[in-house]
């Protein structure tokens, strides 16, 4: 199958590549079918590209690349809804926000990861019960700003 007019151009995909989020992403419940696109080999980033709206793609990241200590517990209700057991292969990704032209200001939402059951290819954005996780985790240290080091 072919998806035209995405921000990556035309994407080819198979039915088996599709990931379904029955409830969609929080705030976007009407979009439920996606494919995961990795634009650079070895990159921790994956775009959750809608196959229903080519202009819609969420930037996700593998949190272990930036926060190795991040080990969220998926709440029971969510695990049950996704049919996840200890052995089920699953993917846990977090949304990444990068302000225009400022990759150094990238933040990750650690409070609401996207969890995908790789066997069923069904996923959900899970709001964690542990409120200690921030929605705007800064990945890169903020550079100290002095008159001489501020970039032109």
């Amino acid at each position, binding site marked *: 199958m072919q998806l035209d007019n995405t921000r990556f151009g035309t994407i080819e995909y198979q039915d088996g590549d599709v990931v379904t989020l029955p409830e969609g992403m*929080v*705030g976007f419940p009407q979009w439920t079918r996606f494919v995961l696109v990795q634009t650079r080999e070895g990159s921790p980033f994956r775009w959750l590209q809608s196959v229903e709206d080519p202009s819609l793609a969420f930037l996700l990241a593998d949190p272990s690349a930036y926060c190795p200590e991040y080990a969220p517990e998926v709440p*029971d209700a969510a695990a*049950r809804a996704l049919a996840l057991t200890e052995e089920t292969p699953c993917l846990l990704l977090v949304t990444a*926000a990068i302000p225009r032209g400022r*990759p150094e200001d*990238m933040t990750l*939402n650690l*409070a609401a990861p996207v969890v995908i059951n790789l066997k069923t290819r069904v996923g959900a954005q899970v709001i964690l019960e542990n409120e200690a996780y921030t929605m705007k985790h800064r990945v890169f240290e903020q550079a100290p700003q002095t008159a001489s080091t501020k970039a032109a």
Partner: protein
Amino acid sequence: MLVLTRKVHQSIIVGDDIEIVVLDVRGEQVRLGIKAPKDVVVHRKEVYEQIQEENRRSAGVNPEDLPG
């Protein structure tokens, strides 16, 4: 919007299996108890809205801005 007035310890039932109880009221704060089946998600509205906003931001990222 349906508007109901409740006193402390009174409840509201939503659908067949969701109950919201006013546990206590202290000044400006109202403490609510929510009884719902385990598969029903309940969150403070501002939490939901903040996540929606972060999602919106992640959907607006320019692929050229990816680090590394």
